[in-house]
């Protein structure tokens, strides 16, 4: 219960920040050259001023900026994100269509990065300053320096073009008519390369953090105590050291939730995945500002949600935190 109180207080504290972000972005987008109507008429090849005036009235662009802002915020409260001029649908439904792909990509990459980062970090810490450590640490540095989109392209060249093992892009076979398990397998083969590509940078960061905190924890008294009472090495490692060594990594996951989402934008573009990031890119190039604002809103919500989960996880790993609240 105390945990829940802590979490909800954190959630409430992030609401004013979210409001400020939205107001700031709304005003920022007022500076953009051209409005929705300009983009719309440009797409249908120009229109006469009377019609454009009518359209502005329809989209509520004929009133002053403060009133527009007020209306915008009021619509947000009702979870109405406005109308996408490019897709001809409400922004909320466009985003909802794309959200699952991005969530799947983010979640699978995060899990891969955590699992591989933890395992490699422990391995490096166990063999510190010997060749496994040097190899793993070097790999970590190289992964960190690799531009994800370039790694994605090169993996397409190797695995899709030369070896022909995996599809070069897309979310699933179009018109394959697959259902159930076959469809899941199809999606999995499509998601394998994007997941590895997005996970790489985070894997590099997590393994470094894991190695450092593992080295730190292994020198502490309670680890010596655990050894002294005759616990096996695996028991010491997994039940005593790992739990504490995980804390810095969990903190980092929360801090980097935004970076993960930003990385998804690039990776989705490389692999032509119909996700939120791809949508953001299209919204920028086609000047669909309503959609862009909606995506930013949803991303901010996602970051807040991830941080909430991280808070709960943190309190679960370290009971002292729940008590301090």
């Amino acid at each position, binding site marked *: 219960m105390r945990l829940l109180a802590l979490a909800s207080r954190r959630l409430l504290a*992030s609401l*004013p*920040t*979210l409001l*400020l*972000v939205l107001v*700031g*972005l709304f005003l*920022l*987008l007022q*500076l*953009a050259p051209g409005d929705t109507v300009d983009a719309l008429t440009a797409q249908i090849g120009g229109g006469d001023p009377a019609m454009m005036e009518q359209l502005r009235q329809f989209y509520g662009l004929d009133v002053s900026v403060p009133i527009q802002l007020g209306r915008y915020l009021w619509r947000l409260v009702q979870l109405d994100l406005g109308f996408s001029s490019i897709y001809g649908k409400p922004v909320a439904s466009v985003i909802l269509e794309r959200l699952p792909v991005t969530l799947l990509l983010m979640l699978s990459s995060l899990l891969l990065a955590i699992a591989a980062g933890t395992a490699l970090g422990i391995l490096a810490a166990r063999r*510190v*300053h010997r060749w496994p450590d040097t190899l793993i640490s070097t790999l970590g*540095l*190289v992964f*960190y*320096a*690799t*531009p*994800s*989109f*370039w*790694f994605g*392209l*090169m993996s*397409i*060249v190797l695995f899709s*073009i030369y070896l022909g093992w995996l599809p070069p892009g897309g979310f699933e076979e179009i018109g394959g008519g697959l259902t159930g398990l076959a469809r899941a397998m199809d999606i999995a083969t499509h998601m394998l390369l994007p997941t590895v590509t997005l996970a790489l940078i985070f894997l590099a960061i997590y393994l470094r953090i894991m190695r450092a905190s593992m*080295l730190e924890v292994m020198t502490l008294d309670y680890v010596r105590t655990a050894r002294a009472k005759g616990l096996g090495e695996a028991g010491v490692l997994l039940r005593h050291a790992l739990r504490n060594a995980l804390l810095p990594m969990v903190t980092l996951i929360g*801090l980097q939730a*935004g*970076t*993960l*989402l*930003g*990385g998804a*934008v*690039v990776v989705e*573009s490389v692999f032509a995945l119909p996700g939120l990031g791809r949508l*953001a*890119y299209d919204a*920028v*190039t086609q*000047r669909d*500002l309503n959609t*862009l604002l909606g*995506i*930013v809103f949803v*991303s*901010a919500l996602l*970051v*807040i949600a991830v941080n909430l989960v991280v808070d709960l996880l943190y309190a679960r790993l370290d009971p002292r935190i729940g008590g301090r609240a």
Partner: protein
Amino acid sequence: MSTLGRFLRNPAGLIGLLLLLLVVAAALSAPSLYPDDPLRLAGRPLQWPLTNPRFPLGTDNTGRDIAAEILHGARISLAIGLVATLLSVTIGIAVGALAGYYGGWVDDALMRIAEMFQILPNFLLLLVLVAVFGSEIGTVTLAIGLVSWPASARLTRAEFLTLRQREFIEACRTLGMRDAQIILREILPNALPPVIVYAGVVMATAILLESALAFLNLSDPNVPSWGNLIGAGRAVLRVQWYVSAIPGLAILVTVLAVSLVGQGLNDALNPRLRGRP
């Protein structure tokens, strides 16, 4: 041992420094080795590397000399990295110093702003800024600097929070020194080392951000940026994959160099860490 000596004895820092010197040498030699515009048509398009002695790294799909683009690209990447980092770290230090030194409502307000930036995915904010202000290279650099300051602000703030409690600062106050003097001459020099080390990370991220933006065709198309070249090579990825592969390696080497130097500095400036496993 001096900081420099410690830095040079560290293999990571030394390799990083050598790689960085290589990139700087490439950037400096670009105007004399390839005095012509690297974006001009140089020869028949899509010649593989090592097949024509005139083009050691081959030509891309529009017939530009890849070697010239790589060398000139080093100038662009280093310039963007340096300017964006300088901007980001300066904002970060200013915000962090004020928040950490004064505390109270100043701290609350400034940290709320930093939180606003952290709630938004950096790259998404960058897309918004580019959509609004255009993708001219100066604008892009400025935008990268603007989206990446909160981390250095938090770092500076944390240093200031501990340092302002110390006795030598109390002594300064008793001596009647003004706040500006205490901040700039007493606390800042002590708070700076971790921020300088972190600047390596900021610079690596800045270079990666610009290349990702350029890859998506959202950066300045009129400069020979490595990301632009990777994006162009995408059209011929199926067969002439070297067009994308070569500039990617250049980015990898540069970012690796910057982060290794940062790590070397970290180890050299934190002698306490020496001898620890």
